[in-house]
């Protein structure tokens, strides 16, 4: 073994992720489906086990010691999230199931209270279904309208079109920070600036961005930011909705139940303060603690190191795939994250996925929960290789060999 001169020691990093040692069909796993979910470092797995072995109890409810330990762990995780995205207050961090629930929460509370007949909500042509359907449900209920910012062929938003969509009826803007299907990182600062000039609040769907771009919600100035723990090397079933305190305070509750109340009589219920007002029932306590551990882990690697290694991988992957004549990349924005979405001239994405799987390579094939976007490109589906900081250039070489295999099978 030669010693690496690269300050980013990916071999060392890979040691932290036990699943990366797994063999698939007898071949080393090449995990390139990180946009769907990321793998978990041992530190996160240990945090889950440790919580159940030493701290498990319900939070905010008991005077006994264990309950206090669990509450400290849970609230400690909230503080870690706050620091990670640089929110001003702890109470602006609401634990939810994931991005999907975060967006639904905003649509069902802020949306129902503030959006009426004839009002308009702006999204983009590259949204995940979870940032389309909650707004459609609201529009249906309220008689409001959904407006869509179009994109160019590279997968970049047309900001001029956005400006002309902003109207006196616009009540909300909800935009994906980094597209899961194209990789495009959107100019969210400008989007927010233009909306705020008209006093329109903005939600960012950070499901993808949070694992690849350092996030500072105060600097961004967004009103809401939603993300999922499982795409940030944390457990499934837990995510975060950040909301500005003044907005959250004014919003009606989402679900009713325990924990979200201050006092209940059959005549009247007083709601708890934020964040508890939005955390009805027993939350995913262990998951939240696991997410806190994931944040610690990511911080120990360093978001900047992660971003720069992924940038290098993306450049290498883009170059290698561009060399293959039968491959067409979908999503070629100038500013993009580590996602390589492509179609092949003679092979359907689903067949590509099966052949790559036989080589141990995990990619996602399909519409990536973005059917309107697939329609925009006139393809039913794409193959998507999404990279994380534990991926290597050798793995991209393996992907390229896998694609050669597809070409070989389909040219018989």
């Amino acid at each position, binding site marked *: 073994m030669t010693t690496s001169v690269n300050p980013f020691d990916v071999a060392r990093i890979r040691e932290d992720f036990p699943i990366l040692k797994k063999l698939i069909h007898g071949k080393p796993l090449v995990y390139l489906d990180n946009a769907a979910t990321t793998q978990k470092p041992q530190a996160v797995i240990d945090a889950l086990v440790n919580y159940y072995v030493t701290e498990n109890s319900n939070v905010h409810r008991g005077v006994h010691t264990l309950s206090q330990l669990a509450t400290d762990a849970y609230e400690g995780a909230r503080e870690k999230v706050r620091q990670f995205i640089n929110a001003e207050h702890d109470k602006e961090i609401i634990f939810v199931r994931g991005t999907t629930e975060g967006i639904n929460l905003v649509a069902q509370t802020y949306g129902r209270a503030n959006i009426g007949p004839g009002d308009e909500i702006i999204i983009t042509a590259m949204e995940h279904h979870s940032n389309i359907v909650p707004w459609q449900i609201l529009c249906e209920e309220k008689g409001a309208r959904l407006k869509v910012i179009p994109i160019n062929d590279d997968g970049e938003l047309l900001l001029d079109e956005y400006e002309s969509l902003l109207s006196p009826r616009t009540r909300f803007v909800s935009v994906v920070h980094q597209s899961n299907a194209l990789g495009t990182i959107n100019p969210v600062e400008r989007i927010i600036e233009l909306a705020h000039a008209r006093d329109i609040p903005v939600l960012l769907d950070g499901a993808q961005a949070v694992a690849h771009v350092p996030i500072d919600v105060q600097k961004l100035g967004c009103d809401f930011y939603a993300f999922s723990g499982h795409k940030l090397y944390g457990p499934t079933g837990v995510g975060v909705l950040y909301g500005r305190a003044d907005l959250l305070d004014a919003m009606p509750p989402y679900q009713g139940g325990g924990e979200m109340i201050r006092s209940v009589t059959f005549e009247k219920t007083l709601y708890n303060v934020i964040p508890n007002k939005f955390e009805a029932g027993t939350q995913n306590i262990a998951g939240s603690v696991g997410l806190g551990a994931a944040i610690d882990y990511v911080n120990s690697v360093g978001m900047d190191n992660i971003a720069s290694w992924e940038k290098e991988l993306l450049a290498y992957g883009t170059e290698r795939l561009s060399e293959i004549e039968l491959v067409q990349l979908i999503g070629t924005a100038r500013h993009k994250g580590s996602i390589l979405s492509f179609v092949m001239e003679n092979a359907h994405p689903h067949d590509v996925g099966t052949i790559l799987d036989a080589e141990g390579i995990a990619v996602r094939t399909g519409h990536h929960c973005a059917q309107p976007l697939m329609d925009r490109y006139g393809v039913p589906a794409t193959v998507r290789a999404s990279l994380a900081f534990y991926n290597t250039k050798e793995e991209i070489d393996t992907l390229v060999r896998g694609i050669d295999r597809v070409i070989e*099978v389909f040219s018989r």
Partner: protein
Amino acid sequence: MSNLHELYQEILLEHNNKPRNFRKLEDANRKADGYNPLCGDQITLYLKVEDDVIADVAFQGHGCAISRASASMLTQSVKGETLAKAEEIFDGFHALITDPDADVDYDLLGDLEMLSGVSAFPTRIKCAVLAWHTLNAAIEGKEDSVTTE
């Protein structure tokens, strides 16, 4: 032969490249749409049924090699058969691709035997049966599009 070669046999690829009866059937008297939400495969199946016999059958749509080849082979195998016989063929085909140890009647299946490799790829069974579920829906005169879910 590797599992992969067994799956992507030459006959399958040939059907994928040049699907049989791949057109709209203008005088169809039954029709159904099928959709596989997992991968976006979409198919429209047209039937002309006369006295319980499938006098003509054709399909349109887009999908992976397996769903296209399966649809193409379907049209060949059920054309001219009674509805009851078509059902029998589907049952035999279903057993072939889901159960490697099934006792199947190869005479009944003809070219469809070439899809047996699917049984080693559980995630692809839905692709292979999409056209068949759509055929059933067309026979039963169902209006709603069928899905593999």
